[in-house]
């Protein structure tokens, strides 16, 4: 498999196939991130397309010193926040977050996904739905997307110590909510 740096470089040279490979490589991650922000599959799909369009337009501004993933996630987060602001200006199309969560949990990353994995994802989505936006975002960036503390700190513009403490607090909060929803989880 081609490494990301090579793909990006070929994209910057105008290679359409490299761009397609990059989209296929990161589509699930970008869509997953967009869904976590938007909490709606249709909107997440539109936002994910918008994110890739923005990436395509700004590939020239990407500097090689930084790794691609944090750069992409920062850009994706900005697009998601812009979309959320626009959404606040109009009434919500649907409030059935629970059904949406169940539907997304049933999608899964692979077709071979087992029933227990689906129920676990459903449980995690339900628990995260009830958390505050800031706690959910820090979990999303650090624990789900796997960014380092320094990268999250740069992305959110807060000190690394704050990132650590907020993340620990959010994880305990999530664990407490999961324990309430399903005491058998983790045993």
């Amino acid at each position, binding site marked *: 498999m081609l490494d990301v740096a090579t793909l990006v470089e070929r994209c910057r040279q105008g290679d359409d196939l490299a761009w397609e490979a990059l989209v296929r490589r990161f589509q699930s991650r970008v869509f997953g991130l967009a869904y976590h922000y938007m909490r709606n599959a249709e909107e997440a799909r539109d936002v994910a397309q918008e994110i890739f369009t923005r990436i395509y*337009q700004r590939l020239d501004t990407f500097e090689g010193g930084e790794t691609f993933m944090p750069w992409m996630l920062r850009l994706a987060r900005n697009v998601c926040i812009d979309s959320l602001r626009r959404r606040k200006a109009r009434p919500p199309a649907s409030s059935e977050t629970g059904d949406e969560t169940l539907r997304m949990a049933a999608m899964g990353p692979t077709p071979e996904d087992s029933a227990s994995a689906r129920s676990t994802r459903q449980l*995690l989505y339900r628990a995260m739905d009830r958390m505050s936006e800031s706690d959910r975002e820090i979990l999303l960036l650090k624990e789900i997307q796997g960014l380092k503390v320094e990268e999250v700190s740069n992305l959110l513009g807060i000190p690394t110590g704050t990132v650590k403490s907020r993340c620990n607090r959010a994880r305990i909060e999530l664990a407490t909510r999961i324990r309430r929803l399903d005491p058998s989880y983790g*045993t």
Partner: protein
Amino acid sequence: MDCRKFSERFGDFVEGLLSLKERRAMDEHMSQCVRCRELYTMAGGEPGDQEVVAPADLTESILSRTSGPVCASARGRLCDHVEGLLDPTGDALVSLHLRDCAECAGLSSILSSLRVDLPLLAELDPDVEFVGDVLARTRPRSRSRPAWIERFAEEWRNLIKRPRFAWEGAYVGAFLLMLIFGTSNAPLASVPQKAKEVAPQVRSSIGSVWVTTRGNVIETSSELAFDVRRRSSTVFETARETFEAARENFEAARKTLGIAREALEADRENLEAARESLGTTRESFETAREKFEADRENLEAARESLGTTRGTLETTRETLGTTRESLGTAREALEAAREALETFWESLPLMREKDDTKQPADQSGPDEGEKP
């Protein structure tokens, strides 16, 4: 072993600090001495007990009276404990807490599972057309175009997405119309006046054309009306089918809503049950705390009684020593008195003989068998 030695070693015996041999000696003494056995019973134990088990909630009660609950502190380090980032001492302390705190132990195991499960949420597959849509949105835009055009297009797209864009457009349009036509110095200021003059001529020429056109229009409209009627019946059928489908969807949605409502009711009942259970647990906790308080007061009273008994024992021992000394003195005095009496008895015949020699004719002397 006597009572004095028992008393000296009693404290260590209660604390369980004596050797097996000494303990056996203490037990043996208690089996023979009622008072020492009573003393041990008052101290809260029975002969033969090896250890006293502390109440289950003793630690929590002590912590609530001293440092407060420690779960918050443990949870502050729980994430680092799960990731193995704590130093050995801190790690051991958290492990010790988890051994006795079921709540924190449960959270710890959940955190361990979350380390595996959360990264799985990072990726979600969109539908199969997603890549095609993205490529369609990006490919037509030639990357050879200058960057400023791309930026302008991007800014323009963002601009027109704003809800107030329509108002702004109307305002700018009205302003431009005013500039072009509305003022005396405007370049096209004479156009409205000229239009007013030309209007009657246009109206008269339109009149003749109108009659001809009207006939054509009526003819064409009747044909169109027939066509529209034919097509509208088709549209009506389609609309009816759509309506039926929508009604079925509505029914399905209503059923789903009913199921969701039932689930909500069940959740509410569970919540009520949990709340009641919490109330019961709280009452049990209060009862246990009261019992603990009473037990502690009893223990304090027993301890004070033990102190008093020990003091009494010391006093009794001193009294016993004094009595023993008095008894020795009394015994010596008795011995001296007995010796004096023996001497007196021995000297009594000689004294009688002396009396007989002094008063031979006296008949009023005491009998021989009479003793003083």
